[in-house]
């Protein structure tokens, strides 16, 4: 299969008042089409920076990001983004929030088609009947579901998620993991998921990429072999010996990564 996302030798530093802050150092990631890459790493190591580079919101100092065989120089209409904060627009209904990307990407699409597309997704994530509600009327988990719908409403080929479930309680989070698998079965995106939850990375990822401490480089890549039942990943699978072993490996890797985090933040 074609590698849909290719990050080649990406190096990046931020200019700060205290000088250059190197954040990414010769980072390499490849994600085949249709696959799900989970990225874990110590806090502040540069995970969000990576998402902004993949989205084309920033250019790396060195190295290249390729999406679908094209070098990324600026934002592309075929990318979807979701964040820890659902960032729904309070003055729009849930339906109109989901439609928002279509207004940019497909300005000539008839409103009826936009509504049909948004309703299809809202139904899929269990938000049917909430179309006309305001974001403030929904729970945190429901808002994040709406935010996920918005991030894929325009059928992006790449979905970038930066700790989308990080602010949710454990049970809601597990519900959303399952919703994520449901969406994957229906929608053709390739995904990068930043997370700080190792169980989440194993349950959702086809590969888990462990980043080292800042400046982040690819420290370890785990190929996930999830115990499947009826071709499906069940939550109970997380308690299988296979998953326990993968989780133990990841935990060890995170410890190594954390050991490399410089004690004091600031310039190198």
């Amino acid at each position, binding site marked *: 299969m074609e590698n849909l996302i290719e990050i080649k030798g990406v190096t990046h530093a931020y200019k700060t008042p205290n000088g250059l802050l190197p954040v990414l150092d010769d980072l390499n990631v490849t994600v085949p089409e249709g696959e799900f890459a989970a990225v874990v790493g110590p806090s502040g190591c540069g995970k969000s920076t990576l998402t*902004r580079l993949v*989205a*084309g*919101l920033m250019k790396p100092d060195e190295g290249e990001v390729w999406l679908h065989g094209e070098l990324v120089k*600026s*934002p*592309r*209409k075929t*990318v*979807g*983004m979701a*964040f820890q*904060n659902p*960032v729904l*627009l*309070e*003055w729009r209904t849930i339906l109109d929030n989901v439609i*928002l*990307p279509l*207004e*940019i*990407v497909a300005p000539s699409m008839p409103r009826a088609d936009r509504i049909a597309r948004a309703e299809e997704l809202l139904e899929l994530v269990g938000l049917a009947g909430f179309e006309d509600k*305001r974001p*403030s009327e929904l729970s945190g988990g429901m808002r994040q579901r709406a935010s996920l719908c*918005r991030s894929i409403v*325009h059928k992006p080929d790449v979905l*970038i998620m930066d700790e989308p479930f990080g602010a949710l309680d454990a049970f809601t989070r597990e519900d959303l993991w399952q919703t994520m698998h449901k969406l994957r079965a229906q929608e053709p995106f390739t995904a990068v998921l930043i997370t700080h939850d190792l169980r989440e990375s194993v349950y959702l990822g086809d590969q888990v990429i462990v980043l080292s401490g800042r400046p982040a480089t690819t420290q370890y890549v785990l190929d996930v072999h999830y115990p499947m039942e009826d071709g499906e990943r069940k939550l109970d699978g997380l308690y299988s010996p296979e998953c326990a072993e993968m989780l133990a490996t990841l935990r060890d890797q995170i410890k190594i990564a954390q050991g490399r985090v410089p004690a004091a933040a600031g310039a190198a």
Partner: protein
Amino acid sequence: MKTVQKIAVPMIAIGLFVAFWEFIVWFNGWPNYVMASPSDLPAAYSKFWNLFLSGSWQTLWRTVAGLGLAVFFGTLLGMIMGFSRVARDGLYPLLVGFNAIPKATLVPVLALLFIGEHNFNTVLMAFLISFFPIAVSVGIGLSTLEPEYRDILASLGASRFTIFRKIALPKTLPEFFGALKVSVTLAFIGTNLVEIISPHGKGLGALFLSGQTNSNYPLMFAVLIALAVLGILLYYCVVALERIFAGWAERPHQ
């Protein structure tokens, strides 16, 4: 029931206030030239009703014109400061300094700059005194927009203008209207300041001044009450606009 209460409670409050005022004047035995009492006012209104009408109109349109300018240029300044760090660093001290100048000192300056242009001077003062809160609130609203709000559209290649129109602008509306409520009162003060201080002025302020020169104290108090009514009217117009354009920001009760 709810609406009756919403109207009745302020009415009763006003009634109590007027009664208290009447009582204080009666209790102290103050004559008219020390302090007019509410019962003196109807006579003043009926005697000078045409002056009140034309004066109110003068004051009203110049206040609204000044406020309109303040909205336009205040928003523009706010946008410049909100989008550019350099502009913010450069403009902010200037604006704060300008805002700190007591505006009464500007009346003679403007009068000399634009001799005889009474309408223009008044509108200009209403503008000068009221644009600051709008500029600051729009500037802060835009500069504190969380990056994720920008990124949901920026990641699709949307232009800065589209992001402004679809996200930044509506998101700052609640702050904008908060500032507008302050500005409308300030613009009103600015108009009256010029009307009262400059000779041969127009509007309610000039009527107040003529009451003063003729020692017609009931007239002066009648003007004050008319100003208060006009101020309340303007304020609630802004509140109504806020309901229409930023009603979504109001949390539903309970």
